[in-house]
């Protein structure tokens, strides 16, 4: 990329509330209001729990109150006798047909993938694991029946701490032991880099366990006509789910339809093949009637897969001038009790990202996955990359502190210069484009960096009880998951392509079918913009269908900031194919050579004449088929599958100012600036929304949220009264802006944006908290940075 390509778009959103509109009639770049909104705003929604089927029954699950135990008896007979109860089953009743919940990412040769029955049969390994189920005529009767199921347990020791779990004398979660896998990746000579390094920084950071907390609790509805099966689920992955359910249950794939109706957020938590989905299918098969299960929030906190949960040990070697020589990373990653769909892959998604945007000659990454008696972990917004980014961005601040250097300056000395792209990093990834200088300069200006530093100095001098901290995070991340070839090299069980179909309808309207499965991301709107530009049709003439395997027959769904950079591009390519067909037809009707036609404004015009056919006219001509040329079928449609060569690498600079009340320990965000570079932008409104939401979730990890288990394996944060999600009153406004360095990896020039805010913001906030406390000799606060933790650190420093 050249400097010219990295233009500032000048979108000072927070100040003006205005978004720049692109020139001319192009749809791409316009702040289109979303087509999705109206139904959602008027309550005409299709959440899975809204759906009813004739004769539908309600399922609820009896869940283990023990973290680790042998099941010695399950008696469902009393439950069966209650009014309104149709059936009740234990795990044993399904032992022969329920199979094992799949893990699609065996990351190493030595990986242990334990059997994972959807309903436990003989042993439970975390609190909340399903052990029995009841099926009743309505949810109230089902709730009553739950209490009538008798289960006896013989307790086994809980295994809660990763380090203890790896000790030879630890109780075992699984027969094969508590180590799930270990992986080491090396590049260059880290030992040499560390040896005699002028500066060596050695730190351990803890990524606390998080509960993703999508606002819509999970729900599943399954029905069958005896031959075919339909499953509605609040899922991000209807296509992946269909394949995996077919494999798990033995229901042939062609007789199974999976529908993701309206889905109320996911953030990775609905990227899963769950016990409840499998069991609802098996129950409808056994009972012959539709069954629905709707999760309660407290059930969900226990049993929706959790996120993060790593212990990170980093050793960074640097020269006296701040240039990094090398980095060693040792991770312990808590898998929880089982390996779910991509559980072991999550830390591996960070394996190549601990080096961040920095140049260095040596890098070593080692990770051990550990079994504990807790809910399994899996994807949560960012999935592996927030953890990596946090660690490198935190330790960069420690390097700056060690060298008494400004944290922005130490980053400047190490980051990849804009003239160096494409750049192959020490961990082997090739970053296609970026301009860290531009994003950082813009962020510093918006933030008023120098002025805030002056205020900080003043408060320090005055020993103000409220200290000011400034935190920076200059992040990049790899997203757009993912090139199939690279996934294959990483031993992932599927590809990373995406599919799109575009069909012109007889009246000239356009129906788009996408393999992505949006649940808040606005694909219907954004894809309409792409199609409107490509085909020259009005934005309002485009509809987008998704989330139903009977309609969108091919897809890899929505996660990993992949939808636009892969699925949006697939739609664009399908449009190009439609245009190629239309060109042939137009040439035939206009009696010219296809090469004599130019396409503009939705019409093919014979060069140098006024003769033209609009794409709508051609759609009708294809429909009537009265006069088609040789080899052209009676349809103006096409589809495309896009598989990128590389990941996408959005980047940016986030700055956070935090006021820390040193008397109470409370940290309050005073201002937050984010300048992100997500390449070209299809809809700035949607991009801004993704950034806002991402920042909020990252702040939540830094300051508020933590899933806490006690020593016996009981989750203490089962409700929203204890697991603290921030409200509007707990967060500031965010100042956001963008730089725009187009991606070279796809024809739209776009990069992913769904996870960027979350990845960037957590270290910015914690760096700010620590910066406020550094005069007291404090160099870390464990997340979440609660008032009590900050106070204890201050107490320790004072004594």
């Amino acid at each position: 990329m050249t400097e010219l390509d990295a233009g500032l778009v000048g979108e000072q959103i927070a100040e003006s509330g205005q978004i720049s509109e692109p020139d001319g009639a192009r749809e791409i770049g316009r702040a289109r209001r979303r087509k999705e909104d109206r139904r959602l705003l008027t309550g005409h929604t299709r959440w899975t729990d809204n759906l009813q089927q004739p004769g539908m029954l309600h399922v609820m699950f009896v869940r283990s109150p023990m973290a680790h135990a042998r099941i010695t008896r399950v008696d469902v007979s009393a439950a069966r006798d209650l009014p309104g109860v149709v059936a009740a089953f234990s795990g044993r009743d399904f032992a022969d047909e329920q199979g094992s919940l799949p893990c699609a990412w065996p990351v190493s040769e030595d990986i242990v993938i334990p059997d994972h029955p959807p309903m436990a049969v003989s042993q439970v390994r975390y609190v909340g694991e399903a052990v029995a189920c009841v099926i009743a005529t309505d949810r109230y009767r089902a709730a009553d029946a739950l209490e009538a199921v008798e289960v006896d347990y013989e307790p086994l020791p809980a295994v809660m701490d990763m380090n203890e779990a790896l000790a030879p004398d630890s109780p075992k979660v699984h027969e094969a032991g508590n180590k799930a896998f270990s992986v080491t990746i090396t590049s260059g000579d880290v030992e040499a880099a560390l040896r005699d390094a002028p500066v060596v920084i050695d730190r351990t950071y803890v990524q606390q366990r998080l509960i993703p907390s999508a606002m819509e609790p999970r729900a599943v509805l399954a029905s069958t006509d005896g031959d075919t099966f339909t499953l509605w689920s609040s899922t991000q992955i209807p296509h992946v789910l269909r394949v995996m359910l077919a494999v798990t249950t033995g229901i042939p794939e062609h007789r199974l339809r999976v529908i993701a109706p309206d889905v109320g957020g996911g953030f990775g938590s609905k990227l899963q093949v769950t016990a409840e989905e499998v069991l609802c299918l098996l129950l409808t098969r056994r009972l012959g009637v539709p069954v629905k299960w709707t999760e309660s929030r407290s059930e969900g906190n226990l049993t929706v897969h959790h996120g993060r949960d790593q212990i990170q040990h980093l050793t960074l070697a640097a020269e006296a001038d701040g240039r990094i020589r090398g980095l060693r990373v040792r991770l312990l990653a808590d898998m929880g009790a089982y390996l779910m769909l991509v559980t072991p892959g999550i830390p591996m998604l960070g394996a190549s990202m601990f080096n961040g945007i920095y140049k260095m000659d040596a890098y070593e990454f080692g990770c051990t996955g550990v079994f504990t008696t807790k809910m399994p972990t899996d994807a949560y917004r960012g999935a592996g990359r927030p953890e990596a980014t946090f660690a490198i961005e935190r330790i960069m601040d420690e390097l700056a502190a060690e060298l008494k250097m400004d944290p922005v300056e130490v980053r400047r000395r190490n980051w990849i210069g804009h003239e160096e792209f494409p750049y192959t990093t020490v961990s082997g990834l090739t970053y296609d484009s970026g301009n860290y200088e531009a994003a950082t300069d813009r962020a510093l200006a918006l933030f008023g960096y120098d002025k805030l530093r002056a205020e900080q100095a003043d408060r320090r001098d005055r020993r103000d009880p409220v200290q000011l901290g400034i935190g920076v995070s200059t992040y990049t991340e790899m997203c757009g998951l993912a090139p199939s070839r690279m996934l294959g090299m990483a031993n992932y069980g599927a590809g990373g392509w995406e599919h799109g179909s575009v069909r012109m309808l007889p009246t000239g309207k356009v129906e788009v079918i996408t393999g992505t499965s949006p649940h808040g991301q606005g694909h219907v709107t954004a894809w309409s913009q792409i199609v409107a530009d490509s085909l020259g049709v009005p934005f309002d003439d485009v509809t987008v269908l998704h989330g139903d395997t009977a309609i969108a027959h091919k897809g890899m769904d929505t996660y990993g900031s992949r939808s636009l950079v892969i699925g949006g591009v697939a739609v664009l390519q399908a449009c190009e194919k439609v245009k190629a067909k239309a060109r042939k037809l137009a040439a035939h009707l206009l009696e010219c050579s296809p090469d004599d036609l130019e396409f503009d404004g939705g019409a093919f015009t014979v060069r140098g004449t006024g003769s033209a056919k609009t794409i709508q006219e051609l759609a009708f001509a294809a429909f009537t088929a009265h006069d088609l040329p040789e080899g052209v079928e009676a349809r103006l449609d096409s589809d495309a599958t896009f598989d990128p060569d590389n990941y996408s690498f959005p980047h940016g600079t986030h700055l956070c100012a935090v006021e820390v009340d040193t008397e109470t320990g409370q940290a309050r965000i005073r201002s937050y600036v984010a300048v992100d570079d997500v390449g070209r932008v299809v809809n700035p409104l949607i991009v801004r929304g993704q950034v806002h939401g991402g920042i909020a979730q990252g702040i939540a990890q830094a300051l508020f949220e933590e899933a806490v288990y006690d020593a016996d394996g009981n989750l203490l944060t089962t409700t929203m009264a204890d697991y603290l999600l921030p409200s509007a009153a707990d967060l500031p406004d965010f100042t956001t802006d963008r730089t725009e360095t187009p991606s070279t990896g796809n024809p739209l020039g776009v990069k992913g944006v769904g996870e960027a805010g979350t990845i960037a913001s957590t270290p910015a906030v914690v760096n700010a908290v620590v910066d406020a406390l550094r005069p007291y000799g404090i160099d870390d606060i464990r997340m979440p940075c609660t008032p009590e933790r900050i106070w204890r650190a201050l107490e320790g420093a004072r004594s």
Partner: protein
Amino acid sequence: MPRIAITVDGIKHEEDVEPRLLLVHLLRDRLGRTGTPVGCDTTNCGACTVMLDGRSVKSCSVLAVQADGCDVVTIEGLGANGSLHPMQQAFHEEHALQCGYCTPGMVMAAIDLLRDDPDPSEETIRRGLEGNLCRCTGYCNIVRAVRRGAQEMGQAVRTP
């Protein structure tokens, strides 16, 4: 089983209800008003917020029998003649929703907070929405939407 009379979005209903039936389940499971969703079981998330006799309440924490004789307005009863309520329109204009699950409750809470302050500051809006959680938007656009909705509603009052 107690028999209750309740008006929901302008329609009168008489229903025999179990005492334990939650208002939100009456709305969703019995009356088919599924526009109001449930997001938690501890009165925290606010997704189920409706107007009960003109005041915002969390319908998961009200028994149907407690609403006997009351007037309930849900998100489905807000707009008139197929057009959006100004607050719904403002949420659309400001991109104040993504997945949309919190939206019905958020819109109700937003309208309610304007009863006290028709021209609220950012802080007043944020405080007024403290009982409604959103996981998608980071709230920035919701705050803008409420301010915009307030202006539109003020306008609507001033221009008869």
